[in-house]
């Protein structure tokens, strides 16, 4: 008798997504759903969808969802978690949503140590609105609002969210990962698993940044997009665990007068 060795996660809805061919949102959705399944928390999980390509994420999971306004998902997550600490609350946000218009919300959500999980998908561009420059767009990278390439003299350098959040004293789990190869995807799932576990245990805020591709707006075939990510984003956005709640005890001593 045949044995089922691979199937759709229960937390993933049996529907077709709107994502472009080659986009890595689908992989990330699946990894999140697998983790929700493995932790057995589907029936007490509430997701928060962003404004951006993930805006319809509420159609793709079999968990309750709230749709936030642009950038405000961490505030919405705070409201849900404070109202119902027994729920497992995660946001799913892109780089325009989280690192630009929602910078205030993500920093303060992390700094308050809200016991929520943030899945931060960084594809270095505004996808849904048609390929505009994001805070994470690489120097020289062409986008519709920097047609000659990102000029760091005018626009500054790409913002590294996990490094920025890692400076906060409040205990947290903060990591960066990628999904453009199977090996990276396996690692990404492990990071997501750790992030959700910290929340289930009520330990701390957790955020996993996932480097992602946008073949459509990068103007590259999917395989080339994967190579572009590897060659251009990976050196600037190093992968790894940047902060753990256990490590918080070894944080630098406060400066004099602090």
């Amino acid at each position, binding site marked *: 008798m045949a044995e089922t060795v691979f199937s759709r996660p229960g937390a993933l809805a049996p529907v077709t997504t709107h994502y472009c061919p080659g986009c890595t949102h689908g992989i990330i959705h699946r990894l999140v759903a697998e983790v929700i399944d493995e932790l057995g928390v*589907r*029936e*007490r*999980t*509430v997701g*928060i969808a962003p404004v951006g390509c993930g*805006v319809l994420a*509420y159609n793709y*999971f*079999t*968990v*309750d*969802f*709230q*749709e*936030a*306004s642009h950038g*405000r998902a961490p*505030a*919405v*997550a*705070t*409201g*849900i*978690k*404070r*109202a*119902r600490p027994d*729920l497992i609350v995660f946001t799913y946000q892109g780089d325009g949503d989280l690192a630009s218009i929602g910078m*205030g*919300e993500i*920093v*303060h959500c992390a700094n*308050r140590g809200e016991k929520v999980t943030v899945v931060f998908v960084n594809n270095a561009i505004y996808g849904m609105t048609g390929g505009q420059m994001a805070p994470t767009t690489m120097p020289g990278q062409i986008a519709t609002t920097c047609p000659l390439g990102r000029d760091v003299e005018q626009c500054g350098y790409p913002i590294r969210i996990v490094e920025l959040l890692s400076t906060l004293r409040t205990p947290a789990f903060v990591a960066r990962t990628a999904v453009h190869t199977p090996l990276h995807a396996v690692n990404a799932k492990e990071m997501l698993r750790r992030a959700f576990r910290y929340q289930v245990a009520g330990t701390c805020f957790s955020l996993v940044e996932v480097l992602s591709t946008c073949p459509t707006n990068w103007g590259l075939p999917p395989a080339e997009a994967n190579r572009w990510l590897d060659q251009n984003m990976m050196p600037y956005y190093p992968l790894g665990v940047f902060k753990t709640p256990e490590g918080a005890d070894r944080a630098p001593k406060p400066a004099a007068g602090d």
Partner: protein
Amino acid sequence: MAKKLMKGSEAIGEAAIQAGCRLFFGYPITPQNEIPEYMSLRLPQVGGCFVQAESEVAASNMLYGAAGAGERVMTSSSSPGISLMSEAVSYLAGAELPVVIVNIVRAGPGLGGILPSQGDYFQATRGMGHGDFRLLVLAPWSIQEAANLVQDAFDLADYYRNPVLVLGDGLIGQMMEPVEFRSDRQPIKPLEPKTWASTGCHGDRPTNIINSLFLDPEVLERHNFKLKAKFDAMVRDEIRSAAYGTDGDYDVLVVAYGTVARVCSTAIEELRERGVRVAMVRPITLFPFPYRAVREAALRASSVLVVELSTGQMIEDVQLALEGARPIHFHCRVGGMLVTPDEVMEKVDRILAGAAAEVSHG
């Protein structure tokens, strides 16, 4: 429960707690800081939660999350902060989430000043944010009424699944008056369990999605008409106003709301002692506006006097009510200056002497 002398801000906070509010998200802004300060102390005592947000933008979106999870939740702010919340208020109305928002109005525009004003009437009654929606707006004139209206606001918000705004000013926030909370208070509307809330999708039930995004125009049009039906029901069922001195004959009808109506009532008492025939209608709901009550009372007078702490906002609703049937006179103080009873009396005297100009704007 015996009457207790309370500051307006504390009465508003305590009323919310007595109404079952267990979550408050806010951001400091004068002149309403005593409300979040009170909640930060009291909510943990009743098993609730207070969060000082990083901004009004964040606070109002925390409201969205908590209301979406089915809890009774409130915020308070003052005019510039309310403007920042107007984005979320649009989403709250679109997603049909019940919340209570208290605006202790200060003078504007911009940073303006911190003293009482009614300059946010248009913002409050014309939907506040982008899109096609209304807020139910309640305007108290005393501390007891503020407490009662805050409690009613939670029932109305839950019943209509819509934000409800309580519009006060610094006088309401700062005055001290005796307040009584009834321990046997019952909801003023029949309330259903919040089966729509995002509280975890158990078993086979379809997922609950809190959302204001409808990409299909036919679906969004249906949603817009559904919201419209709620606003129509508010107009049909929720209009509140109070009348003073309308039993007998009178020549001048005063229309004023909130603390200004309180000032006017003092003037009216003195005028009536002098034999001047003057009465007042006080709108308590600003949306829905008591057009009929204002019109019917006005038609029994020879002229109408609107008194506001704005350069003329509610007067437009009075004009809509009267449709030119009576001359409308106007008196205001703005910038944080208050109307005095003497000013109102002088204005009424001048109207009766035929000296005061009829308002011509609108």
